[in-house]
């Protein structure tokens, strides 16, 4: 996305585009670790969904289905809070670095 020059910006820091934070791919902040979802262990308690600060837990038809890596920053909270007997989310090493830059 082309970034505006200072002359093109709306005055007073006002953002006229409601909901444009979806364009902010916070997943690019992730470095080193990412959560991995293990569906067989999951008890569908939704703790991960509740705790995730980036709404990065994928939910389909009322069930936790995985992670949206576009927004997951790899903070590890979901894995920490997951209460199932055998962890349904574990943090794994991630070698691949995503693209530079914080916004789309």
């Amino acid at each position, binding site marked *: 996305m082309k970034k505006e020059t*200072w002359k093109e*910006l709306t005055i*007073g*820091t*006002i953002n006229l585009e*409601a909901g444009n934070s979806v364009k902010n791919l916070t997943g690019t902040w992730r470095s080193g670790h990412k959560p991995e979802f293990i569906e067989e262990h999951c008890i569908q308690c939704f703790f991960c969904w509740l705790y995730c600060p980036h709404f990065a837990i994928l939910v389909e038809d009322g069930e936790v289905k995985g992670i949206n890596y576009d927004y997951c920053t790899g903070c590890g909270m979901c894995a920490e809070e997951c209460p199932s007997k055998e962890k349904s989310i574990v943090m794994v090493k991630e070698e691949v670095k995503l693209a530079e830059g914080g916004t789309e």
Partner: protein
Amino acid sequence: MSTLKTLNGNQTIAEAVRQVDPDVMAAYPITPSTAIVETIAKFKADGLISGEFVCPESEHSAMSVCIGAASAGGRVMTATASQGLALMWEMLYIAAGLRLPIVAGIANRALSAPINIHGDHSDTMGARDAGWIQIYSENCQEAYDNFIQAFRIAEHLDVRTPVLVGLDGFIISHSMEVVQVEGDEKIKDFVGEYQSVYPLLDTSRKITVGPLDFTDYYFEHKRNQMAGIENAPGVIQQVGKEYGEKFGRYYGFFEEYRMEDAETCIVVMSSAAGTCKDAIDELRNEGKKIGLLKPRIFRPFPAKEIALALKGTRAVAVLDRSACPGAFGAPLFTEIRNALYDYDPRPKVVNYVYGLGGRDIKVEHFKDVAEKLDKIAETGKVEEIYGYLNLRE
């Protein structure tokens, strides 16, 4: 109808507020600006103003209310002084960053420690980089005239920047003067209808005010903010001229007093300029070619205009009613000396700090300065760039 009223500085500000009748007035009383807030509260209780009057728990909250109300789309004012302005500190920057045209009356007062309730410019000079337009007043009449013009300047669509109007604590805030108060309708007409820009109360448009910026946008937004205050000079002049045409009192960036053939000049703002005029008259009677330049607008600083007014003189003394610990001179001095740097020939410029904590400055002190200026003009040599007036050494 235009009438002559006996008012003190605080009452003139309150009178101007009654006439403009902003949508929201939020303030916390603090000496020496208390009477502004008190009088507004009385006007509200007596049904003389229709706007909301809010008295929150602190000045920080008062400025926060102003920011909220201005973002919502209202015309907003406040008043404070000294520690109150200092407590508003972080919110001052936010008001300017959000380009909210808030107008504030400041009864200039010293900052603690030691605690002191009297007049000096430490409070507003401390806020000089907050992004606000700063206007200083010599007397009650100017405080009234400046406060009314402040709304037009702040709210101009090219400017949209908060404005503070300074009046010296006690010396002006508490001194009675005969003030020409213009008719209510004429003032309402001069100030005009308030035009809000992206008001939050317009629910048909969903916007965000003051979102988080990262390294990729903060710089551009700050530069965008500065454009507002950069556009102010033309508007300040236009509004000052229009005010003069309507009410007979014209205003510009500064006042020149007996500067026509001046070889030396004293630069001083606010109430002390009145005393300085008496000193200049006496010195002129003695045949001295001396004049006064009284800055009215400190932010945005009219560098070029002031330099042009001073460049022909031989020696200039800039008098500051605030100190700038550790800096190379006090605020007004550094601006003026800097402004003159590109001119050749240029006068020698020296700095005197005076009047901290309300210490008197009298005709004799200005005469002492004049004598020092004479010596500098004669010899072309400056012995001391920086000094103090009426201080026990």
